[in-house]
């Protein structure tokens, strides 16, 4: 359940905007932040908060790609697979390496619930290709060694 403080704070914000729909993406992202992913419960809570039907939220949640309607790990690794990163030398090996390092394939989550691996379209760091984004942080010029380092640091962080 969402904390009451959040609910009341949100109600205040909603009252300020003309139409609660304006806030729908923000609310989805915030509720997702709280639950870790946009679970059915999160969705239904968001629907109640915004006064929309569950389906109306689902229509949007399944549209956007950073709303996770399926469980994800604590760190979601978005690996850019658009043309510039893909064209980098050693891109294929890098992807294989990440998969092996984490022991999962694209779209999967590690059993410890720490990492999820998802492909992403160009994340706008083509000058540092290949680039990845973990949660909201972007890492550029990724090579297998650097990737290992990042993963290890995050493991420590958890």
């Amino acid at each position, binding site marked *: 359940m969402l904390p009451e403080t959040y609910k009341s704070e949100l109600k205040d914000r909603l009252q300020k905007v*003309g*139409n*609660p*729909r*304006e*806030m*729908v*993406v*923000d609310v*989805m*992202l915030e509720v997702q932040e709280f639950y870790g992913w946009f679970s059915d419960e999160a969705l239904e809570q968001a629907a109640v908060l915004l006064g929309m039907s569950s389906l109306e939220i689902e*229509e*949007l949640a399944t*549209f*956007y*790609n*950073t*709303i996770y309607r399926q469980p994800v790990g604590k760190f979601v690794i978005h690996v850019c*697979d*658009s*043309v*510039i990163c*893909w*064209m980098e030398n050693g891109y294929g090996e890098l992807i294989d390496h990440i998969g092996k390092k984490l022991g999962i394939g694209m779209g999967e989550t590690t059993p410890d619930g720490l990492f999820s691996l998802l492909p992403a*379209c*160009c*994340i*706008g*760091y*083509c*000058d*540092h*290709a290949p680039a990845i*984004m973990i949660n*909201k*942080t*972007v890492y550029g010029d990724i090579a297998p060694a650097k990737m290992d380092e990042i993963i290890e640091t995050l493991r420590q962080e958890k």
Partner: protein
Amino acid sequence: MYPQVLLKNRKKDRILSLEEYREMGGYKALHDALTDESFHPRQIQELLLDAGLLGRGGAAFPTGIKMKTVPDDAPHPRYLVCNADEMEPGTFKDRVLILTSPHQLIEGMILAAYAIDAEIAIIFIRREYETAARALEQEIGRAREAGYIGKNLFDSEFDCDIIVHRSAGRYICGEGTALLNALEGKRANPRKPPPYPTVKGLWQLPTEVQNVETLCCIPHVLKNGVDWFKTLAVSKTGAGTKVFSVSGKVNRPGCYELPMGVKLSEIIEDYAGGMLPGSRFKACMPGGASTQFLPESMYHARMDFDDLKNAGFRLGTGAVMVFDHKTCLVEATANLMVFFARESCGWCTPCREGLPYILDLLNRIEAGEGEVEFIPMIRQMCSHMNYSYCAFAPGAAAPVESLLTYFEGEVMAHIENRGCPFKIGKVN
């Protein structure tokens, strides 16, 4: 070295602070425009039109004309939306611009808002640019404190507030009308004009959508004048500078502010450090994934909206993606199609179903299952993409069409060899 305007005083790893921005003449244009009583907001529109400022988001529509389409008697509130949903593969100039000088964008936005008398300005930014979004929020706060944002700016009757809206991520949200639907909390399907957003946009109110780079240009045009802006360009019809985001097989990928109309060879050789060792130039996309491949014959082409258009290409966003002789363009195009096929909003048939169809054919060619009749099939389908709902599908078809036009030999080689020549060792 060409004069730097937008990226002038670019600091390494940090943004230009409000003070620094002010020192270099920032917010002067805004101050002058709002305090000079003889200066009418409409004059901004005229100035931008005279300066020949074209939309830098890819469509190259004259900014002044777009502003003029907001009717004088249009209802309020009016909106100005800054499109920072930069998701085109290869494009990252908006990120660099925001992270160089957020105040330049803020000033440009307030001026653009003033020109159409808009009270609410929204920055629609993609989620991957969280750093940029935070920087903007912080600097908007500072600008508000400094009195550049808010009510009765410079004691005029003009109010303007800026809001940062984070997208939850989809390429189509960068399409001007789809962006409006996204802001309204609807599925981001594009809208079909008429009515144009400048007449009935966000919440059916007049809304002007402009690209980050376009907005950044506005203060400079106002400050330094129309003629100065025109002389920045080195081509006949171009005006101003262009921020090129160079990526791919070059030594120094990155953002370079160069005059409109600079030669492609110059960008690659003089600024991006030339091709990678052992690589030869084969092709280049001049403006992101939705533009045509420039073949080697265009290596010395002038990078200007009109020049490229006359040659049958599009400058787009100025995202120069360089491909070398070792890259299989069929596979690269298939990679682009994967992107377009999964980012289609699913609204109209050619885009939703036609792009996966073309992708399937490309994949088959790449995998060695290609047939000669695939080529006319792809050509015909690509030409039909022009009749889709928005500009997404024609953009997606552009690289494929140019692949078949300029690199038909490479495609045929795939078909004849029943496989990718790069993989089965027929090239190198």
